[in-house]
């Protein structure tokens, strides 16, 4: 067991865990932030995507020790109180969610893109979510939701 400290959704946090635990398991089972989902467990599906220092990573492929001192954002960190993030609103309005399992990861990949490039092309958007699988929507509505959010929100 080791003390690992990091920031999660803006809050300085310290956990005492086995440092070879996966970041995903610490987020879900230690911190009880269950918005982050486990899909394949091997980096193929992106359901467990979180941001580390603003960059999307598969939290199933990261050991908690690797994020010592770093800043993590999960889906819970996007809304401000009851006010949803513009990406969350756009996903709802555009019908970009069906079963919802891929949505937290999808939105975080989109957030990383828009933080770096506020006016992405469709190609930029598709590339940014190329590590996130969705088995319901066929991606069109997800791409449209990200376009809508990039243009300042709901039409």
């Amino acid at each position, binding site marked *: 067991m*080791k003390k690992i400290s990091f920031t999660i959704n803006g809050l300085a946090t310290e956990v005492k865990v*086995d*440092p*070879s*635990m*996966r970041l995903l398991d610490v987020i879900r089972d230690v911190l009880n932030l269950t918005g982050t989902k486990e899909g394949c*467990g*091997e*980096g*193929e599906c*992106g359901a467990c*995507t979180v941001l*580390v220092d603003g*960059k*999307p*990573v*598969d939290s*199933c*492929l*990261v*050991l908690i*020790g*690797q994020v*010592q*001192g770093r800043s993590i954002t999960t889906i819970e960190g996007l809304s401000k109180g009851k006010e949803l993030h513009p990406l969350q609103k756009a996903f709802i309005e555009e019908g970009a969610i069906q079963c919802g399992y891929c949505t937290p990861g999808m939105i975080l*990949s989109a957030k*990383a893109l828009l933080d770096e490039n506020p006016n992405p092309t469709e190609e930029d958007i598709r*590339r*940014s979510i*190329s*590590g*996130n699988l969705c088995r319901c929507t066929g991606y069109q509505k997800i791409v449209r939701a990200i376009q809508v959010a990039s243009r300042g929100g709901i039409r």
Partner: protein
Amino acid sequence: MQAIEYFQPSTVSEALAFLSHSPAKTKILAGGTDLVIQLRERAVEPDFIVDLANVKGLRGIESDGRSITIGSMVTFSELEQNPLVLKCLPILAQAAASVGSPQIRNMATIGGNIANAATAADSIPALLALDAKLSLVSAGGSRELALEDILVGVNRTTIEPKELITKIIVPIPQGKTFSSFIKIGRRKALAIARLNLSLVVKMATNQTVEKANLAVGAVGTTAYRVREVEEFLQGKQLTDEAIADAGGKILEVVAAKLGSRPTAPYKKKIAKGALIKALQAIKDECGGC
């Protein structure tokens, strides 16, 4: 997961000290995108992990004008976006951009890709075609050797358990040099390469090939240079006939390497097709060659 002792050194010498303690029972953690899966599957069961995340001096990309030195902990995202790499080593930037997904490229490192030595590692053929060298250090000393010399089998290298890759040194191609990278996978993202091909061609002033470096991956136990094709191309003009003949040569090499493997009939054909496409692209780019 089993209880593992976890070390997080902040310098290379600290890392080497940990590593020399019991190298056979220690795994080095670079980006983790392969190792974390192997740990969960119990394909590896180390007693110790040395996590290089905070080691200074293993990051950064520098140029002295003749070669580009890449720290072993540089991620594929950093490589694909780095202005020096994009300008001087475009096939390495393309290879980096073809790895996994954005999430994987944000963690996975060039040093980890080399040390893991997967048959289908995306960066290795590009580095082979660019004549890359590795800087290896251990508590006992250091050595520099060609990347080609460490590849011995599927996930097997001659890097010793007590050694650490610190740098990858890539000479900047000089003169009238053109290059091409082709990856064939089942889809664009998250694809394990069915074939990786990297080609660097230096043209002489008389529009013939002065030197060709060709490397392929995922068509044999290791990635390798295709010397038969390199020698064939040397001194030739890139005519349609020469390009077609080069395609025939790589088909023979790949067929011999793969023998009676079920994928052989497919892979020898795509190797031929990819080489022809790569040579055509270089011919078009240099115009009149």
